């Protein structure tokens, strides 16, 4: 890869097609976008998170940092993405990804402290992400407490104070519009 833009070997494409639900033209497009983000000078195939976040598709997403962290495979998890990670991201957010895949990644995105469950702290951060950064839209502590209590009442089936993956997937699978809105189009 590196400086050579939009040169994706053919056999790579056919292999990718076995793994992802995309069409062959898509890989070339994705590769083009990705190599635009890449730094010409540095030889590493990783694109740092800050670069990824400038993409218009992610720019206004409140979970953009989390998304990078979840899909990054770098050793110290700094959110940088390789092309493969990038494809992973796109495939999870594509039309054809199943509810199972989508809910799995959604759970990991919402799991801010990466401990495998959504506890009150995660939920609070999640609410803050959803309500925006400005103070006027923020919920006050009382409302926040009430909201988190309600959420746990609804979806915490085993009453351990946290929402785990299977509970999360149960809730999500009943939702009418999760699949249609958990999408990113390049």
């Amino acid at each position, binding site marked *: 890869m590196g400086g050579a833009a939009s040169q994706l070997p053919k*056999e790579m494409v*056919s*292999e990718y097609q*076995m*793994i*992802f639900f995309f*069409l062959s*033209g898509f890989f070339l497009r994705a590769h083009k976008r990705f190599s635009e983000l890449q730094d010409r000078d540095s030889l590493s195939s990783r694109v740092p998170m800050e670069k990824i976040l400038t993409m*218009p*598709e992610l*720019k*206004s*997403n*409140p979970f953009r940092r989390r998304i990078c962290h979840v*899909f990054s*495979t770098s050793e110290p998890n700094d959110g940088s993405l390789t092309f*493969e990670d990038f*494809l*992973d991201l796109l495939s999870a*957010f594509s039309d054809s990804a199943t509810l*199972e*895949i989508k809910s*799995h*990644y*959604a759970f990991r995105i*919402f799991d801010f402290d990466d401990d*495998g469950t959504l506890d009150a702290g995660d*939920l609070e951060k*999640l*609410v803050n992400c*959803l*309500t*925006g950064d400005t103070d006027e*839209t923020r*919920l006050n502590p009382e*409302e926040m407490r*009430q*909201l988190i209590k*309600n*959420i746990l009442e*609804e*979806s915490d*089936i*085993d009453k*351990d104070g946290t929402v785990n993956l*299977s509970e999360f997937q149960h*809730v*999500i*699978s*009943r*939702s*009418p*519009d*999760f699949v*249609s*809105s*958990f*999408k*990113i*189009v390049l």
Partner: protein
Amino acid sequence: VKNERNPKAKERDTKRKLEIHKTTEQKTENKKRKRSHSKQRGKRNIDDEDKGGEQISKQKKNRKNKKTKKLLTEEAEGEGYITKQKKKRRPQVDEENANATKQMTPEGPPKKKKRAKVSESEDSSSEKESSEEEEWKVTALTPEELEKLKEAVDEKKKLITILRGKPWPMLKKLQTLKESHDFLEKFEGALGKGKAKKLYAYKVMMLKRWMKFQRDFENFKTACIPWEMKIKDIESHFGSSVASYFIFLRWMYGINMILFGLTFGLVMVPEALMGKPYGSMPRKTVPRAEQASAMDFAVLWDFGGYAKYSVLFYGYYNSQRAIGWLKFRMPLSYFLVGVGTVAYSYMVVIRTMARNANEQGGGDDTNFNFSWKMFTSWDYLIGNPETADNKFASITTSFKEAIVEEQESRKDDNIHLTRFFRVLANFLVLCCLAGSGYLIYFVVRRSQKFALEGLENYGWWERNEVNMVMSLLGMFCPMLFDVISNLENYHPRIALQWQLGRIFALFLGNLYTFIIALMDEINLKRKEEETVKLNMTVWMANLHNGTLAENSTAPPITADPADVPRGPCWETMVGQEFVRLIISDTMTTYITLLIGDFLRAVMVRFFNYCWCWDLEYGFPSYSEFDVSGNVLGLIFNQGMIWMGAFYAPCLPALNVLRLHVSMYLQCWAVMCCNVPQERVFKASGSNNFYMAMLLVILFLSTLPAIYTIVSIPPSFDCGPFSGKNRMFDVIQETLEMDFPAWFGKVFSYASNPGLVLPFLLLMVLAIYYLQSTSKTYKKANAELKKKLQAQNEENKKKNKRAALKASDPEEARNSASEQQWHQINNNASKKEMDTWGCKN
């Protein structure tokens, strides 16, 4: 001999393996708590198979290597390069294969660390095994092993196909894929012997080709979906609700394409090619009086003149039973196409509704109000900061509202005032509706008066009054409703529903007033027809007399078809009215789009530099894309098409054109001059709402069409059914003339009320039966859900107990296995529930 030896070998085999497994299992059991027993068993089998494969490979490696290579060169082009690394990696690869199949079990992904540990232990065990296996060898490939191998190969294949549905990182997928390919290439050759092997290789090759073809075909199919990129573009800017309008538009376009194909291919083209040419009959000729102005643009724009006497309208068609060398049954085809369009539309709408209802999760009434708001309210498609800001605001308000509603602490102190305002608002809306209805009725009556006096004496306005009034009402009344609904102080979602309902009522009222007025006109025309018929006989007699007086030897009477007096042909009149309505509706839509959106955007954009207040955020600002209004417009337009298509076969074609243009125009307008909505609401819930409206409109619009077809006799001198008493007589005629006598008899028996009534009764019974069964399914569903909850409670208690006794490892393991059993039960009941849900 072989068969006798086999069971023994097999026994030894399985015994040994079970022993080995016991040791490994003990190691890993705690880690694999989540996996169910049955699945473990299945997995064990798979592992066994793999090991069987290993053994075989080790024995046959040397002998087979050459053969397999040959095979490989035959069958694989793409994956060939992988095999080069094979020799070095072999032992590793085999172990990894075992791991891969292990992880393949279709359950939720265990956590990474655990998985890693599991595979580690597995590695060590298999190493141990392989060392033991060296001493214990079977010399030949037994059928069971072959069977196992085959299963393993099939498993691998399955793994490859389901690989895409796994939430693994890409590197792992790639690795697994490569390993599976390696495995397949190595062992597929081992299956079968001699000729069978070649056949097998051939089959594999063909399968690969077929897969590739399927993939390419899939690519092609997706590439064929029109406007996909455009819609995705809009989706990423404006969120899914605006995109849902365009998807709806595309769907409508598809339906209209098919309607157009039907009418064009089976009605218009045959008549134009095989029917009598223009000018051969009175009904196919412009009358003498109109000939002078028949080619004027104003007349053609009004669909008069040459346009009126063409295949575009009902009146042009001849009642000749069979036309051309194909003996094409024109009147029958006309009738069947008319019925077919309606039937097809019903089918498509109902099928789509059913599919949508299915997607919405099969009658599950659990409501995760807060959780959904939390986990699914963000629309990841939003790529526009402004939309994102709106979304933040709307999510916050929805949270706050939900909290307030939950607290139930809100006390409406002046509830009476609110109620008064709501009643007042509804009264005002009713007044509006009645007023608009009366206005339309008045205008239509007036236009009839104009028509009787002759349109030539009047200007443009008088001629287009009806359409203009209807379009203007459709434009301004919704705004009025919007103002009125401010009085009511409803929740925005409820307010939107009221608004939609009111606009729906307005359109419907207008349409029906229009139809009633048209009916009046039809009756007038039919009276006129009677007098024309009388005149006709007089004229005929005159003609006869004249010709007889002049030349008694020429019996055939020849008069220029343009001079023959003719009836008013109410069918063509109806068709014309609808076509005009569609045209003016389209024009108003486009013009409002250009003025209301484009000009406004341009003004705001450029006057903003020299204005005293901020235009962009102040008063005029940019317009929003009005999803619900546009969808309603589309639905009503379609309703008019359904209503008028029987009398004007050109309507579907016009509509296709209109939809095509509006697709591009609206896409452009949205992208260049609209801002995202302030109250962003979800699309998926409203989809079926739109569909339901479409169904209502379809029903209401076919009603008058069917009424006219069934109860009004067709005109005597125009259209494919002229000379018949009723339009549907054409069916009976065909039955009598084209089918053998027994068929007609059977048909007449079948349409006997004695048979039809029991049949209807049977259908009602069937509906009743299906409904009651679905009710019982629902009950069973609820019952199972209760069970599930009870089990969960029990589990919770057990967990607590287990936590208390956590110090004792023996106890802990017991409870763990118990939990496993519960998990199985839960899974089973869940599956059951799902199947029930599907049935519902």
